[in-house]
């Protein structure tokens, strides 16, 4: 059951071969069996899931259901869900039970997609892996020493504990985690999906997205997530198109590639996968165009600075007064603030807060914060100019197979991913090869609100290749089969 696509699950539900309660129980049983080892869920919401599944079954029986009705989903723990603990991986919010639903959660709830639980993540998404989570690190089902990334939603889907899961992408973490597990990860255009109820970390960069087995699965759910929300001041009004308007092939599509992105790739195997992806896309009818991204080499550094600054500002709301952790026996108000924050934030978050405050301080404001924002405009302009000559840009998702050592190196290693966040552009990462035990992924970056084009290109690629099935096959040989 956990190997089936969303379309197949939907068919089984609609044709009454299975009920949503049965399907939900199946995934809850897998979570019960494997989560202790994988540690990919912080909270499992069995009662809520079964209650929603029962309601879904009523709608299915009455014939007034949506194709996604009854299909369970996992939400990353940075999305508020009414009455459910929402921690963002932090001790600070360990006692926080959300008093409302995030817009994304509400939209998918309205379709009666049972919520299986909340997935583990880097504390406040401010890290590159789940080591910084208050709840301990998540294990990669394909090998405990293999990287996971900052979102355990990828592990929940890869290990078959959830058919699909939400995640968020401020610095490529969603795409990186998807790539680590051989899955598809889509970060929509900034403003396409409401951030209402998504716990803020780097507000001008992050976007809610999905980690899925295939582009088709992602298209089905993303279609229901996008749209203007007046509760989010950065939500955009735009014309939504059909994300499943699959074309025959990719004739007429212009795929850009930039030497500045290819040059950052350190491993020959990754570069070979990118070249192979180019060839596959050409076979499907696409043409290749070289584009120029001259400010790419500054993107990661400027992004690192700006996200630290925004995190420093966003996390100032945690004061031990209104919600979240409060220290024992505070001596005075200052002690209450400082001890609550010092005891509840982890080292990674503290580093980001201090770094952000440094960049925002009066003496550095111009040469750090404003300079990084000027670079951000140059990076955005690079992408805009590139898209004058092509439809999508193809690049590797990761620059190297080995995990970089050291705090700064880990952040800077996401240099291929952060361009899309800097520009606000949509991007999709998809499996495109294999290097030893590690899956290799490539990403396609599109113009704003070109999700349909991105998903179609990824879908056509997955119709023509079977890279996306490699990890699922490998799972058969593990104890998580």
């Amino acid at each position: 059951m956990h190997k089936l696509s969303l379309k197949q699950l939907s068919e089984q539900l609609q044709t009454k071969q299975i009920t949503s309660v049965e399907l939900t129980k199946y995934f809850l049983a897998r979570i019960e069996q494997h989560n202790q080892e994988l540690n990919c869920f912080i909270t499992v919401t069995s009662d809520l899931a079964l209650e929603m599944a029962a309601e879904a079954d009523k709608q299915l029986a009455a014939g007034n259901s949506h194709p996604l009705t009854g299909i369970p989903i996992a939400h990353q723990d940075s999305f508020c869900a009414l009455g459910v603990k929402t921690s963002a991986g932090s001790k600070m919010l360990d006692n926080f039970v959300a008093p409302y639903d995030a817009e994304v959660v509400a939209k998918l709830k309205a379709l009666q997609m049972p919520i299986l639980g909340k997935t583990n993540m880097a504390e406040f998404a401010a890290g590159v892996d789940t080591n910084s989570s208050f709840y301990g690190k998540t294990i990669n089902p394909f090998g405990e020493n293999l990287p996971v990334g900052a979102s355990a939603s990828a592990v929940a889907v890869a290990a078959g504990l959830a058919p699909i899961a939400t995640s968020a992408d401020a610095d490529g973490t969603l795409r990186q985690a998807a790539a680590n597990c051989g899955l598809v990860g889509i970060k929509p255009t900034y403003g396409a999906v409401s951030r209402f109820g998504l716990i803020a970390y780097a507000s001008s960069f992050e976007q809610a997205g999905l980690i899925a087995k295939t582009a088709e699965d992602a298209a089905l759910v993303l279609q229901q997530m996008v749209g203007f929300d007046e509760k989010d001041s950065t939500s955009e009004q735009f014309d939504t198109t059909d994300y499943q308007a699959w074309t025959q092939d990719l004739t007429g599509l212009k795929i850009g590639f930039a030497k500045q992105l290819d040059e950052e790739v350190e491993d020959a195997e990754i570069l070979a996968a990118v070249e192979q992806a180019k060839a596959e896309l050409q076979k499907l009818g696409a043409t290749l165009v070289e584009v120029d991204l001259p400010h790419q080499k500054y993107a990661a550094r400027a992004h690192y600075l700006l996200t630290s600054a925004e995190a420093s500002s966003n996390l100032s709301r945690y004061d031990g007064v209104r919600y979240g952790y409060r220290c024992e026996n505070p001596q005075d108000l200052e002690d209450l603030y400082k001890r609550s924050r010092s005891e509840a934030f982890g080292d990674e978050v503290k580093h980001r807060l201090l770094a952000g405050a440094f960049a925002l301080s009066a003496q550095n404001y111009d040469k750090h914060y404003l300079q990084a924002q000027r670079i951000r405009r140059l990076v955005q302009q690079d992408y805009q100019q590139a898209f004058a000559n092509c439809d999508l840009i193809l690049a590797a998702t990761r620059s190297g197979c080995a995990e970089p050592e050291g705090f700064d190196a880990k952040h800077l290693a996401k240099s291929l991913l952060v361009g899309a966040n800097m520009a606000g552009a949509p991007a999709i990462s998809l499996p495109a090869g294999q290097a030893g035990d590690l899956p290799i992924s490539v990403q396609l970056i599109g113009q704003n609100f070109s999700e349909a084009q991105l998903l179609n290109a990824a879908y056509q690629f997955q119709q023509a290749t079977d890279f996306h099935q490699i990890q699922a096959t490998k799972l058969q040989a593990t104890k998580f089969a």
Partner: protein
Amino acid sequence: MVNYFTFLRAKPQFFDGFLLGKELKFLIYLVGVRVSFQPSDLKKLAGLVALNLDSDADKLSADLAQTFAIFDSINELDTNGIAPLVNPIERGAFLREDVVTQADQREQYQAIAPQVEEGVYLVPQVIE
């Protein structure tokens, strides 16, 4: 010496094509930041973000110095005349009718507060 490093960080373009190779300049950046970023600076910074420093402040100082060197290095790019980009969306805020859209949810929101009494959040006494 510190003045030299400060000058170098503030005006790196002054040294373009002048005596120093890029790597050496970067090394001096690192050393310069290490010299100029003192434990007392860390204390001030920690105060700004309301954090107490733990016993490992020296290591934190060293780690942060490396991060700050990375931040400093973006100044090698000349961005004269470029307007900062704050947010990918630059259309400004949407306006809506000035009407009540949400019911009062104070009780619900205060139910999750650490300490509340009669609708107000309680903190240690501030004024005698």
